[in-house]
């Protein structure tokens, strides 16, 4: 609480300082240049493009909008964006101007060397240091499993972001658990962003415009998860020309169609991807094979309309599903559906607003039909969300964002229905859970002096748990003492939490800067999962009167340097994160248990994570790539586990190294490779064994006191640009995953030795050795 009071005083102090700055010096008239930056060929808005004039600069927002205010005069306006040729224009500013800037794609010279004056998108003067942005081109340059490029797999090659391992979905950012990452697709949260046990994510990389990753120090407009935000923006659709592109790989086929509805004013984009391996299963004459189902699909559909100078409307939808069926006996399917309607409005040349209406749905279905045992289990989380955000480009010293957010969550945690009247299963319905999450935020990026930028903000959230429902009081052993009944719409409890966000960024000289930041994040949705592989059947549960909101306080410091004429970037960041109300499970917890009182299986404690991250990146030339290294530790302390002592979290990995390289040989060939290495997960291994009912059972002492073996693998890839005609281009992508076939441990289990029943063996299972693949992509 002392922290909050001190912060409030600082905040008030800054506000008063801000008022004096806001007053323009009298005498010189100031005018504003505002508009949108788009790509010439496609009409796509460019996110994060830099717009500069006379030492003042800004960056386009998520909708490509910028606004810059200068005294009357003549200026050279410079606009640049990664992957595009920069643009310079002389502007005479004697009144406020609205200008839309188009940038051309960077061109390839005859030798195949890229010509682009913006060699790096990282300008040391940018106040938002320490934010990782990846464009579609960055994602294309990394070899991928089975030829599928993947946005979420690519970010796992950056420091501080760790993969959950082969066959597992999810990832860990700065020691946080895999449910602590907010994954947004065009503003809509995606609850389970993985297909097929984590081999692929639900994002079709061809349609992704940009992904921005915040590792815990997110600005105030984001909230709801402790460890990170992955803000994924898709292309809107080419509003100049029609294009069809697609491809076929070893596992899946994809197709994308985009084009204008009215040229220059509106466009659409539809992309679809589906696996086709199961079609071969259907061809088999054997009924024990042709009855099986194994596929997933993703479908994205978008439309946007420019309704005049000040307004733009967007519709987007995403539908995806994974289906697994074993004959008629067992079926499992899960999937996300999201829909958003967004309206951009310009109130004036300094005030941009976006209003979003968002719907998001995630559910899974399990069906079992084995003789008289037939039943279905269904579980779902559904959100209705309204968001209003303003970008106020007050002056060149203050760029303000403020807004409101309201989400209504309905969770259907579990419904068991008998498959037929003769089923020997009863219907069992868990109560729905209702909650209402509200947030208001304010943030200012304040250019306090030529070298110092201060970003300060506050996000204030109120999370309300609503009836109708039964809530409980438990004793220390998890037994129910009391059941409280609430009616529909009644407030069970509301958690209020202020989340301050503060960052100081100081430019040391033209090529280097330092940054110090603090952020508090609060999380009210928790993923209940107790297995090594994160299952699609894990449950999302909202805070209750017993499950308190998780809170994380993260302090971080960073040093950023551009080297050798901006061709190299060096980033060093260190962080310390303290987490409260972390959830773990009682010994022997049954998290599949169908009970309204899930809290009987849970224990609560605290966590701490700290580390140092290094990133060295080469951004220009024929050879580009990066080297990333993270040294870190994550621990938890929960009363009731490990004799109340601190223990390593499962995702604690001391060292994590990624080396990525891409070499553009010439116009036809480019090669890529990546090598990853990380210390194994912390695991619990037995300390002894004994016999129960004639069977060997293992004895455990400390939690997560051992390590899995280290993980490392090398992937290589090559892209061959086939004949490129005027309107048609195609390429072949080759890749090999795990080139030297390292058997990386997926699990280690213990069993009686197959040769000698008197001995106990530790058996390691590895999933993938070398997996080659070829895929063909086309575009016209």
């Amino acid at each position, binding site marked *: 609480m002392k922290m909050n009071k001190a912060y409030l005083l600082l905040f008030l102090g800054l506000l008063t300082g801000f008022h004096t700055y806001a007053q323009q010096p009298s005498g010189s008239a100031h005018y504003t240049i505002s508009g949108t930056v788009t790509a010439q060929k496609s009409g796509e808005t460019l996110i994060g493009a830099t717009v500069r004039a006379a030492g003042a600069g800004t960056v386009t927002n998520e909708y490509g909008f910028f606004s810059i205010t200068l005294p009357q005069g003549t200026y050279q306006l410079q606009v640049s964006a990664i992957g595009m040729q920069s643009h310079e224009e002389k502007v005479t500013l004697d009144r406020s101007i609205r200008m839309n800037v188009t940038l051309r794609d960077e061109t390839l010279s005859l030798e195949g060397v890229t010509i682009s004056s913006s060699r790096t998108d990282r300008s040391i003067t940018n106040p938002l240091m320490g934010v990782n942005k990846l464009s579609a081109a960055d994602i294309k340059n990394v070899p991928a499993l089975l030829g599928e490029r993947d946005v979420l797999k690519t970010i796992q090659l950056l420091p501080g972001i760790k993969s959950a391992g082969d066959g597992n979905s999810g990832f860990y950012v700065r020691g946080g658990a895999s449910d602590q990452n907010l994954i947004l697709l065009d503003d809509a949260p995606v609850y389970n962003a993985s297909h097929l*046990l984590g081999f692929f994510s639900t994002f079709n990389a061809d349609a992704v415009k940009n992904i921005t990753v915040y590792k815990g120090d997110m600005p105030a407009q984001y909230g709801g998860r402790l460890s990170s935000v992955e803000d994924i923006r898709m292309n809107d659709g080419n509003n100049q020309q029609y294009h069809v592109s697609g491809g076929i790989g070893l596992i899946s086929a994809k197709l994308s169609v985009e084009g204008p509805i009215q040229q220059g004013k509106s466009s659409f984009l539809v992309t679809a991807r589906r696996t086709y391996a199961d079609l071969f299963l259907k061809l088999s004459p*054997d009924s*024990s094979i042709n009855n*099986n189902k*194994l596929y997933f699909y993703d479908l994205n559909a978008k439309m946007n309309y420019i309704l005049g100078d000040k307004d733009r409307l967007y519709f987007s939808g995403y539908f995806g599903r994974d289906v*697994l069926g074993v004959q008629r006996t*067992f079926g499992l399917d899960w999937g996300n559906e999201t829909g958003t309607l967004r309206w951009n409005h310009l109130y004036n040349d300094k005030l941009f607003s976006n209003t979003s209406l968002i719907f998001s749905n995630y559910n899974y279905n399990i069906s079992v039909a*084995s*003789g*008289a*045992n037939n*039943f279905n*289990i269904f579980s779902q989380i559904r959100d209705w969300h309204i968001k209003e955000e303003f970008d106020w480009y007050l002056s060149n010293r203050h760029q303000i964002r403020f807004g409101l957010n309201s989400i209504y969550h309905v969770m259907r945690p579990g419904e068991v229905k008998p498959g037929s009247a003769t089923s*020997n*299963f*009863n219907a*069992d319905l868990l109560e729905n859970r209702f909650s209402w999450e509200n947030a208001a935020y304010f943030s200012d990026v304040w250019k306090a002096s030529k070298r110092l930028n201060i970003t300060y903000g506050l996000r204030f959230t109120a999370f309300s748990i609503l009836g109708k429902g039964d809530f409980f009081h438990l004793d220390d052993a998890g037994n129910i003492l009391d059941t409280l009944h609430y009616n529909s719409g009644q407030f069970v409890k509301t958690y209020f939490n202020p989340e301050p966000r503060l960052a100081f960024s100081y430019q040391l000289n033209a090529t280097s800067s330092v940054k110090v930041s603090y952020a508090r994040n609060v999380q009210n949705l928790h993923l209940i999962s*107790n297995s090594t*592989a994160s*299952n699609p059947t894990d449950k999302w549960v909202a805070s209750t009167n017993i499950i308190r909101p998780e809170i994380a306080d993260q302090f971080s410091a960073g040093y950023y340097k551009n080297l050798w004429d901006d061709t190299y970037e060096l980033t060093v960041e260190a962080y310390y994160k303290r987490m409260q109300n972390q959830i773990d*499970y009682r*010994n*022997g917890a049954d998290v599949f*248990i*169908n009970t309204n009182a899930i809290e009987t299986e849970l224990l609560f404690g605290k966590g701490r994570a700290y580390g140092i991250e290094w990133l060295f990146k080469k951004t220009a030339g024929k050879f580009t790539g990066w080297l990333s290294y993270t040294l870190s530790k994550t621990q938890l302390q929960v009363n009731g586990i490990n004799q109340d002592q601190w223990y390593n979290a*499962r995702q604690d990995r001391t060292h994590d190294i990624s080396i990525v390289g891409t070499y553009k040989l010439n116009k036809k060939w480019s090669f890529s490779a990546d090598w990853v290495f990380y210390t194994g997960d912390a695991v619990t*291994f*037995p*300390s*002894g064994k*004994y*016999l*129960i*009912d*004639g*069977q*060997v*059972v*293992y*004895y*455990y*002492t400390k939690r997560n006191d051992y390590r899995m073996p280290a993980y490392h693998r090398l992937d290589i890839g090559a892209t061959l640009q086939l004949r490129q005609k005027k309107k048609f281009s195609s390429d072949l992508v080759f890749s090999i995953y795990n080139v030297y076939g390292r058997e990386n441990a997926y699990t280690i*289990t*213990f069993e009686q030795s*197959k*040769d000698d*029943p*008197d*001995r*106990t*063996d*530790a*058996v*390691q*299972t*590895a*999933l*993938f*050795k070398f*997996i080659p693949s070829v895929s063909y992509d086309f575009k016209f």
Partner: protein
Amino acid sequence: MKYIQLGCLLFLAISLLSACQKVIHLDLKPSDQPYVIEGIVTDQPGTCRVLISRTKQFADDNSFQGVSGAEVTLADDAGDTVRLVERGAGVYTDSMFIGATGHRYALQVTVGGKRFTASSTMPSKVTLDSAYIAEEDFFGDATKQLNVMYQDPAGQPDYYKFVEFVNGVQVQQLFVGDDQLTDGKEVTSTLRYFDDKDNKNDVPKIKTGDTIKVNMECIDAAVYKYWSSLESSATGSSQSASPANPVTNIAGGALGYFSAYTLQQKVIIAP
């Protein structure tokens, strides 16, 4: 639920393109060796026994090494106590002791200067209506599996454990269940096990002419918690992220359980 775990395991099995397994060597730190107590009281004569041993180091063999010289007493809720006699190292029995439904039994073991206590209430007996062999087909591989049928009593929580013997050899698999979703229903449960052909020690799959015996145990809630937590986190091959010792109903720091259960058996010949 077991079905979810079964499904995910199958899913994994199908999706594994080039999975491989190998035996590896691990350096496991030795630890203390707590006592292990298995206490059993049933409603059938000659079955009452308590087995006492200690945990062994990982590299030791898997034989049962009983602990002698313990003082083992059983008491019923009327206050009558009986002292069990050691018959073979670590095995303590009483040939006369029979339990009855609804009664609460208390076990007390004093060994090595430590005292352990536990209690268990014998639940009501649910009749094992029938046991039969049915064929199942998983991916073209036909196996015979044992099915048991019983009528779950409505309106009360019931917990079951089954033990399967094929030609006299116990199948090394835990079959435990509750009636959370099947309360009051006629339940058919498949005691499914798979035979790993590489493993010489596995019980081979059921073939025609085999003698199959099934024991049905009606157990109390604490004992069900012991077996289900053992199955999910201590068998060495579980999918649990956090392996841990099963939740025991024995107080004092021993591993193991004390179970008062009703016992029924059926023997059939596989067709």
